[in-house]
């Protein structure tokens, strides 16, 4: 699964996701990716979020819309990403990752899988790319 979130110069937000699904899935199986609010959500009033991982578990928390709702309550994107990934694991035994940008251009990124490949470009332009985001959550779940 791949995803992208963006904030433009006019202050507009957008999100896109795309996937080939799971290897050897049952024909007709659909995960979270194309489901609005689960795989992705964007609202200029709050932020944009894209999720990836174990789709059936991500759906249960409507993860991307939940992220935007928490942004609306004033939480910072990084705190939102970490909180929701923690909930994903503790509440529904799910695994995945989440990227967020809020309407102020602040970024959040978290995962409880061994890796999440990502890249962030900010004015400079400053490019940060990697396969692990150095938060306490990601450190906890490195591959044994």
């Amino acid at each position, binding site marked *: *699964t791949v995803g992208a979130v963006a904030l433009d110069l006019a202050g507009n*937000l957008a999100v896109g996701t*795309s996937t080939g699904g799971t290897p050897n899935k049952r024909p007709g199986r659909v995960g979270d990716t194309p489901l609005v609010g689960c795989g992705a959500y*964007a609202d200029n009033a709050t932020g944009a979020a*894209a999720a990836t991982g*174990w789709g059936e578990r991500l759906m249960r928390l409507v993860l991307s819309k939940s992220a935007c709702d928490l942004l609306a309550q004033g939480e910072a994107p990084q705190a939102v990403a970490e909180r929701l990934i923690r909930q994903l694991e503790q509440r529904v035994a799910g695994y995945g990752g989440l990227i967020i940008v809020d309407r102020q251009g602040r970024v959040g990124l978290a995962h409880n899988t061994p*890796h999440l490949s990502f890249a962030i*470009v900010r004015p400079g332009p400053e490019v940060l790319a990697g396969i692990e985001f150095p938060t306490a959550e990601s450190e906890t779940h490195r591959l044994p």
Partner: protein
Amino acid sequence: QPVMVVHGGAWHIPPPLREAHREGCRRAALTGWNVLAAGGAALDAVEAAVRVLEDDPTYDAGRGSHCNLQGEVELDALIMDGRTLELGSVAAVKRVRHPITLARRVMESGEHAFVVGAGAEAWAEALGVPLCDPADLLAPSSAIAGDDWTPPGMRLPAD
């Protein structure tokens, strides 16, 4: 200030594929960033970035997708505009090289939000979105070799 963020999936990335994952994400993010830096719309930036990732066989999307139990690819995509809350979504399409672009065309058609399967492919043709040979979308074996990590309670690798 504009910002562009992309991801290439969350799971275990085998060591031989890690650099390709990093570089693919960097390339996609910079593609989207170039749209933003030129004053382009966030919607155009995310579509451009996802198209780059769909073209890269490193990732499980577009070209490089995993196959299902019948040996076929079934692709899903969603795009959403935060300005209007409009969205377009497609699922289980087998012959679309860039599902993200089909999702956008669905959104811009103003008629529906979510279309699936053969109906979505028929609409792709009507909307001028090119179709392709499904064989062109299958993941090379090198893209999935060694990817056998699964968490407790799960039988198959994730999206």
